[in-house]
């Protein structure tokens, strides 16, 4: 799971123009919330344990606390400011190193993040672990030989895929209905195990980034936008005038 700036948070660039200033509000990356929910539902059906993992500075622990409150059993936090600047390849390498002694059957990630939007970390992790993967998943059923998943394709098409486990699945938003944390859950979360992994523990697994953000900036507008202002009644009148005389749709 990943912590990302809140959807409507105003973003400011840092002094070097390579990243945003950290003083914004954060929330859980939305597709990751669906991935967690799906893990909890699978556990309710098949028993087992749900472990949540994130990387990032101390603030990212909030994502794990919320997940534990919703019902995850334990958490792993790769904690260091430097994890924010890793590319997807090295982030996946750090995760692979942190979980090398675990015995997971399934790893879920959200299909992409709301900040970078690379849609890569889950698939890279699968390759590093030598596991099969499937992306943009809308349904997961256990079978005698592994799992059957429903992949979303483009333009309203779908496909079922049978695959063995262990496997990595990237989960599409909307696969399920998200639950809220209960008061009891929030209370219990405080006593659930949270393992902190310092950078030093995975340092030997990660290398130089393979790609680099040279410059982050506010995109240049390519379109001329006319702002329509005034009281609601005035705006309505002005708009109808545009619809009739400029767009000719009335």
């Amino acid at each position: 799971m990943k912590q990302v700036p809140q959807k409507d948070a105003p973003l400011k660039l840092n002094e070097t123009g390579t990243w945003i200033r950290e003083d914004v509000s954060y929330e859980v990356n939305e597709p990751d919330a669906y991935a967690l929910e799906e893990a909890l539902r699978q556990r309710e059906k098949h028993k087992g344990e749900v472990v949540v993992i994130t990387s990032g500075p101390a603030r990212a622990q909030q994502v794990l606390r919320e997940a534990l409150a919703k019902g995850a059993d334990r958490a792993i936090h790769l904690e260091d400011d430097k994890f924010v600047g890793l590319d997807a390849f090295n982030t996946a390498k750090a995760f692979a190193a942190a979980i090398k002694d675990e015995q997971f059957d399934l790893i879920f990630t959200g299909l992409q993040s709301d900040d970078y939007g690379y849609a890569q970390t889950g698939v890279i992790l699968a390759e590093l672990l030598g596991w099969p993967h499937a992306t943009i998943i809308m349904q997961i059923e256990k079978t005698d030989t592994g799992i059957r998943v429903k992949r979303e394709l483009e333009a309203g098409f779908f496909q079922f895929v049978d695959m063995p486990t262990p496997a990595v699945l990237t989960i599409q938003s909307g696969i399920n209905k998200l639950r809220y944390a209960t008061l009891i859950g929030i209370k219990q979360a405080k006593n659930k195990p949270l393992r902190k992994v310092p950078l030093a523990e995975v340092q030997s697994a990660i290398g130089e980034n393979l790609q680099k953000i040279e410059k982050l900036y506010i995109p240049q507008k390519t379109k001329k936008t006319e702002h329509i202002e005034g009281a609601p009644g005035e705006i309505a009148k002005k708009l109808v005038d545009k619809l009739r005389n400029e767009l000719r749709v009335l």
Partner: protein
Amino acid sequence: MPDTILVVVEQREGKLNRVSWETITAGQAIAAATGWTLEAAVVGSAPASIAAEVAGKKLAKVYAIESPKLEPYTPDAFAAALKQFLSSKQPKLVLMPHTYQVRDFVPKLATAMGRTVISDCIGFKHESGKLVFTRQMFQGKLAADVSFTSEAPWFATFQNGAFRGDKAEEGASAAPVETVSVDIADGVIRNKPQEVFKEAKQAVDLTQAEIIVAVGRGIKEQKNIEIAKQLADALGGDLAASRPICDSGWLPMDRQIGSSGQTVAPKLYLALGISGAIQHIVGMKGSRAIIAVNKDSEAPIFEIADYAIVGNLFDIIPPLIEEVKKAKAGG
């Protein structure tokens, strides 16, 4: 020998995905800027006819990479086939469209080769000998210029609509086609895909709609959909939505606009409380006119809007419905 750019076009079940022309246009533009050679490849069990179709464009060469194990598509087979091919050819840059299929295998392929993908790019720059790729970040609020710091081959994917497919230059004569058979060992393919299918018939076809009123998260509650419906009715248009609205079940999935829903280009697209995530924008940016209403003045939807109204949609829509009705009644 100049460096080579390789465009891997996309085929599904023997048909070229049209978005591949956009990637060829992108490849031609990068080739013109850098002086690198441009080639293309198609991967499949019987790629010959698509290779011939692609060879009509201005390209130095087209490779038809074939193996019976490449049908049906699996990430294991595609990554194995391309790894074999790319390891022997060593192109500088590999370009693909940012489709769901490419997203499924290209991070695996790059990782297997110890390389990286700059994904979902919208453009490139070549300045003082350095090639950078432009991509959207933070749901389109910011843009980034990203460079490769690793060895070639470099992988980049382009967002749907980033380049114009109809601008792909024709060649003076057909490019030579070379068939390359790849060997995919038993046991490489672990996934067993079933037939591709469409969920219950698409009841609503928004692709032909002239006016679309679309709602996003800003509508807040299911019961508020009604006000958008009234506006759509008054305008004689169709109601649509961004993905979160359909995920919540407030409107059926067949009214969803965006990469996982329908792609539309109406005369008028009225976006109510839609922030403008990339996945939504790719489905509607071809609209002739876009009016956006959003309370957040920094919402990315305003970047592509012709008319912007920053404000509370619940204040603005009711009088708008009345004015539209008046205008229609008055003729």
